[in-house]
């Protein structure tokens, strides 16, 4: 009975997605109930499975797709970190999306693929081996493509095409790496510390090449430079999609994959021995700086946020690549922290654009008085991104920096400092404009909305902003993401 639970986690959203398609465009109430119902059921499932994992009864689902090649879905501490994040943010984003897309076209299609997208994310989180991970990783590409193209404008179609080019090419490389790895080492489940070290020293060159292939496969979605340029183009998607893409689904799937690759496939020791940790860390550091510099040069709010994601997600990569208890903790916990802050920022950008037509950074002047709650949320998340103590971003950066010093990687410190300065340079002027500058006479495209609709947009935004503050403030609490991650990491570095 228990072994069906992981499958149920995936199926809840998948069935909801299919049901939404079948309901059609007009049945709005039924669709809303289905959306929210599925999200709540999923949260309950996550809670139940978490308890099972805590008492060491992690459920596992297994199905042989080919002889010796199993589809494995299971819950462990790391997958729960990601599923909890996804389940919580899915619920909040659904509320936001329902309000955001009020009266727009093709909502059945939107919410259908939205649900399938979450189902794939669940599959990625619960995947028990790299093969299963790959299957859901591909499914995620398929499910997000229609969301990026959703508006059907020329820019949207081009953005979606670019997205497909990058991700499908990436997954072709991924697949070759996967075949190679399985040929060399056989099919194996994710285990703490990897387990590839039994492979002889003769194969180390091959293991290095495979590692690079797999990093390319995952790096495309994680937007590692130079495989990042689909991400700013995918900004044409509706705000809730961008929010989900940047916080939980696509970009995070890539980052989560890198975590699995380093920790559970190769194992941190072997990665270091092969010299791959260093390579990955340099790539991540470069991405962090490059993304920040590019963000600084953008004048469109969503594009600036997109490049900020390129930079911030690489903190996760940097943490696991540097290795050691502290740095790994910093990287993994940023998976959650970045998700919360970035989703808030995109929610805000969506509200600015939908309610006032504000898309450009110059148009933010005086916005703080016009919509204080949204501006406050933006400010809080922005400050968090910069890493102002005691915000969530600070907790991540502190662990990263201290961890890097602990393993002797001093060079990480200047990278972190530079990145923080750049973050400040591209967030603080926006915050200053919102609060200090006078309100303009005329907003670009003001829309009068009913109170409820604005509420549907603002409440989720304030909620995610509040959570992002709380996880930073109460980082030492035993139920905080940080404590959970510390629990995971101590297994890798006993």
């Amino acid at each position: 009975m228990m072994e069906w639970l992981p499958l149920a986690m995936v199926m809840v959203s998948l069935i909801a997605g299919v049901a939404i398609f079948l309901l059609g465009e007009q049945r709005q109430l039924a669709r809303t109930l289905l959306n929210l119902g599925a999200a709540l059921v999923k949260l309950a499932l996550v809670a139940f499975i978490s308890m099972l994992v805590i008492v060491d009864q992690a459920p596992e689902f297994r199905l042989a797709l080919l002889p010796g090649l199993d589809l494995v879905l299971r819950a462990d501490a790391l997958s729960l970190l990601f599923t909890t994040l996804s389940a919580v943010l899915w619920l909040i984003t659904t509320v936001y999306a329902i309000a955001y897309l009020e009266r727009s076209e093709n909502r059945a299609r939107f919410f259908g693929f939205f649900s399938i997208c979450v189902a794939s994310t669940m599959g990625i989180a619960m995947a028990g081996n790299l093969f299963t991970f790959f299957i859901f990783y591909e499914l995620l590409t398929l499910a997000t493509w229609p969301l990026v193209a959703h508006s059907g404008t020329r820019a949207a179609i081009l953005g979606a095409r670019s997205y497909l080019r990058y991700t499908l090419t990436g997954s072709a490389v991924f697949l070759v790496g996967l075949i190679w790895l399985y040929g060399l080492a056989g099919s194996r489940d994710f285990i703490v510390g990897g387990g590839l070290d039994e492979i002889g020293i003769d194969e180390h060159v091959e293991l290095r090449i495979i590692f690079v292939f797999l990093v390319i496969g995952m790096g495309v979605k994680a937007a590692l430079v130079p495989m990042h340029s689909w991400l700013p183009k995918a900004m044409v998607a509706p705000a809730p999609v961008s929010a989900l893409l940047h916080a939980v689904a696509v970009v995070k799937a890539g980052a989560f994959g890198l975590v699995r690759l380093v920790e559970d496939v190769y194992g941190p020791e072997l990665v270091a021995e092969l010299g791959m940790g260093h390579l990955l860390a340099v790539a991540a550091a470069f991405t962090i700086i490059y993304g920040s510099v590019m963000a600084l040069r953008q004048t469109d709010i969503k594009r600036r946020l997109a490049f900020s994601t390129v930079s911030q997600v690489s903190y996760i990569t940097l943490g696991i690549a540097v290795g050691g208890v502290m740095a790994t903790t910093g990287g993994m916990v940023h998976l959650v922290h970045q998700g919360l802050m970035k989703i808030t920022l995109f929610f805000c950008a969506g509200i600015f654009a939908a309610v006032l037509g504000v898309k450009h950074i110059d148009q933010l002047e005086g916005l703080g008085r016009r919509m204080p709650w949204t501006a406050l949320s933006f400010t809080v998340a922005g400050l968090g991104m910069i890493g102002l103590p005691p915000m969530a971003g600070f907790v991540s950066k502190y662990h990263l920096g201290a961890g890097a010093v602990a393993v002797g990687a001093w060079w990480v410190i200047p990278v972190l400092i530079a990145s923080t300065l750049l973050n400040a340079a591209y967030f603080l002027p926006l915050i200053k404009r919102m609060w200090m500058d006078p309100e303009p006479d005329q907003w670009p495209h003001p829309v009068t909305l009913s109170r409820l609709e604005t509420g549907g947009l603002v409440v989720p935004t304030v909620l995610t902003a509040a959570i992002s503050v709380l996880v930073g403030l109460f980082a030492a609490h035993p139920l905080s993401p940080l404590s959970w991650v510390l629990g995971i990491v101590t297994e890798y570095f006993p």
Partner: protein
Amino acid sequence: MTMIAESLAGLVFIPLGMPLLVLLLPGRARGYLCFAAVLALPLCLLPLTQEVWSGNEITLALAEFHPPLGIVWYLDGLALIMLWLTAIVAVPVSLHALTSFPPNEESGRGFWPLWMMLLAGINALFLSADLFNLYVTLEMITLAGVAMIGIGGKALALKAAMRYLLLGLLASVLYLLAVGLIYGQTGALDIYLVGERLETGHLASTALVLMMTGLLVKSAIFPMHVWLPAAHGNAPGPVSAILSGLVVKVSLYMLIRIWFWIAGDWELPAAATALGLLGAGAILYGSVAALVQPRLKMVIAYSTVAQLGYVMILFPLASVGAFRAASYQLLAHGLAKAAMFLAAANILKSLGTDRLNALTDLDRKMPVDLFAFTLAAVSIMGLPPSGGFLAKWLLLEAAWKQDAWGWLVLVSVGSLLSAAYLFRVIALTCFHPGRRHGPTRWQPPPSSATNAALILALLAIAAGFTSAPVLDLIDASLPPGGIWP
């Protein structure tokens, strides 16, 4: 044993008897009788499957005459898989044909007897292990296929049918010549006997080249594919599905049989590589051509040219893994391609055109047909979870095991190209900026026709979950020699 013999006979003689029987019946009843005959095929296969499963190959000497004089039917795992593919594709296709070729109308009067003949031919071919018998059944299939393309009498279709017929006849002549040479040397026609008796030499090589060339033409392997796109792209309704899903697989199956069962241990690496290179040409050329087609059915037809290329990689690899991969590819492609052509037939019939720029807005007009097409596309692109993905995985794995990096890269590039031409279609139908420029007058297809496409598409996806029984059958029927473990 009688149960087995009757089942074997049923596979061939039930459809073979239909064309005569339906002459006695009034219009509508003909269609239902033929449909019932198609439904009987899986029932005939059940006892056979049980027998092959328990590890026995089935041999039946017709009228108790044994080779070299008599005709013998063999059934091993590979043939059984192909028979199942035929039966499984035939059921939804017939369901579709009940509405697209109504039995009481002119088109239906032509379609149903031909379809039954074709089915009898296909089933008989898979049961044959005798070079001359294979020839006769292959002719039966080609002639029925050509005639089916011509149903409806559209000029383009007739022209394509003519070209198919002429090239098909040329191929037959080559094949028959080779059969003559082989019979002259060995005095046998049975594949297993020929395999034992035929000695390598100029004569044997000539025969093999002739035979392979003929079959390559019939299977439309690049660059002998020239007849296929027009024929499959212009054939009416479900006929395209039959041709692309089943008919090309038949000659490809023969190609595999003859190469591995007769010439299995002849050590012909150069020729094997050449066959693989033809496959590479097919994959690259077919995909690029599919990318620039203005009509949906032509895209699908060129996709067939490309997809058949993957099977050809079996020849240079020649391993157990490649055998599994090629067989699974035949199966998965048969299901997905039939689904695609059925969906395309519905679209063409409803909108009156299948030009891609008229298909914008299809997601609102015919969502289920488009969904079926998309599911089939997932399998063709080799994305998980689908039969096509498992076939691609097996092929990549087989290539890796022999360090055949060239083939590995080819397969990866090929699947990217297939994604390019299929996503082009899907993007046009759902997200075209100039939406609502398609025809304003259209009629939804009958729900049974839509369901037929959907069933096949779902089966193509389901093939991504249940590989074990199929792979067991393949493993039990590997060629006698000449392949890597």
